[in-house]
């Protein structure tokens, strides 16, 4: 049955909201043992984008990525490919590299005993070489981290048992490919430390019906929150969302990416919120069971329809400022969880059908942890 609300044609409810209501025990957000298993069973078996490719644009550029208890050096090799390796000396585990920059001499020297590593993480020099067991030094390197460069991002994966990136991303990879992200530019970035479990942070962005309450003065003016159509493509989820005053006037050629805001969760922790001409991307990185670092980026395509570059720059700035406003509104709600997460009155979530993406997200996590599905 097609509903009509204020003259807007809606998709049938069962198509719009694919899953039934569900319940979720509060302990999934608070149990420290489960949190540790999430890191090893989920984050160590997934692909995630960690840096824009442009952060290591030139040969010998490097950047260090520190999240989820891991530290990885990412470098651009002279042949233009990317190398990623664990940021730990193979002598006695000291940290090798800090920060970012261009490594002119292509050597990273351990600050403790002077082991030297090349751009690809291979050990190129060992002080007092003759005093070591030669067999242990043969082919020694900082262990490589699986990586792929795609869509303007460098993606990492800590496991060999995960399929290649595009296979892992499946349908949302095909969706993202249609934007031509290799031609996009990272314009702005920010990070904010939130006092809530990482899944509360992810949950907070994957439904739209908080918009008329949390964002009544901001995002409600931009998106048609009632008309989100949710898609479950395990382990990922996504949705299309009409843009107020744009989607109804857009030329509909069958490609929702040209007319809608398309919002993808790349499981487990990264969201691509894509407008036809630009996007915001953000990742929720667990810090502890009750803390999360949210890293957000504004990524823009070329100026649309021959728009002068200067005007496009102003639009980019405006879009980013609006995003920051919305993020601040979400952050205020999320941060307040720290004050009530221990409340005896909070025992479980009840998700409605409009929160189907949250149900699917938690089902995927439970499955990967070998738990029963949420009720």
């Amino acid at each position, binding site marked *: 049955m097609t509903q009509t*609300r*204020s*003259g*807007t044609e809606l998709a049938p409810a069962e198509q719009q909201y694919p899953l039934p209501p569900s319940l979720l025990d509060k302990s999934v957000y608070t149990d420290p043992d489960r949190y540790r298993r999430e890191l090893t069973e989920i984050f160590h078996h997934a692909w995630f984008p960690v840096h824009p490719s442009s952060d290591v644009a030139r040969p010998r550029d490097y950047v260090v990525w520190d999240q989820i208890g891991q530290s990885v050096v990412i470098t651009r090799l002279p042949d233009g490919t990317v190398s990623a390796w664990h940021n730990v000396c193979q002598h006695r585990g000291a940290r090798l590299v800090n920060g970012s920059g261009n490594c002119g001499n292509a050597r990273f020297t351990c600050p403790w005993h002077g082991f030297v590593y090349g751009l690809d993480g291979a050990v190129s020099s060992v002080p007092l070489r003759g005093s070591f067991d030669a067999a242990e030094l043969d082919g020694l390197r900082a262990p490589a981290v699986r990586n792929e460069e795609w869509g303007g991002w460098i993606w990492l994966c800590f496991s060999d048992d995960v399929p290649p990136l595009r296979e892992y991303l499946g349908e949302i990879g095909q969706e993202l490919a249609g934007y031509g992200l290799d031609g996009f530019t990272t314009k702005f970035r920010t990070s904010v430390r939130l006092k809530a479990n990482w899944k509360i942070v992810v949950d907070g962005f994957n439904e739209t019906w908080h918009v*008329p*309450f949390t964002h*009544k*003065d901001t995002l*409600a*003016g931009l998106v*048609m*929150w*009632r008309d989100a159509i949710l898609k479950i493509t395990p382990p990922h989820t996504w949705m299309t969302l009409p843009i*107020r*005053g744009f989607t109804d006037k857009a030329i509909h050629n069958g490609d929702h990416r040209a007319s809608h805001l398309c919002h993808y969760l790349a499981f487990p922790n990264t969201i691509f919120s894509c407008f036809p001409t630009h996007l915001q991307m953000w990742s929720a990185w667990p810090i502890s069971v009750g803390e999360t670092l949210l890293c957000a980026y504004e990524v823009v395509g070329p100026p649309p329809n021959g728009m002068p570059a200067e005007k496009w720059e102003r639009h980019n700035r405006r879009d980013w400022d609006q995003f920051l406003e919305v993020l601040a509104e979400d952050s205020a709600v999320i941060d307040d969880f720290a004050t009530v997460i221990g409340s005896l009155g909070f025992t479980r979530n009840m998700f409605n059908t409009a929160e189907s993406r949250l149900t699917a997200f938690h089902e995927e996590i439970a499955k990967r942890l070998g738990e029963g599905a949420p009720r």
Partner: protein
Amino acid sequence: MTTIKVDRSTCQGYGNCVLALASVFDLDEEGLVVLRRDDVEPGGLDGLRRAAYDCPTESITFVE
């Protein structure tokens, strides 16, 4: 001419309608919706549509 109706029995005073079209909608001393006028000029139609759309309790109806 557009005719607007509000249902005060379902209104919860969220105030989204006032944000959308303050020339037509207001909240009374109980915090519930009241109409300043029951019609809207053609220029206010977008605001009226948004007021109806953004009302979480769907308490606003109108006939264009």
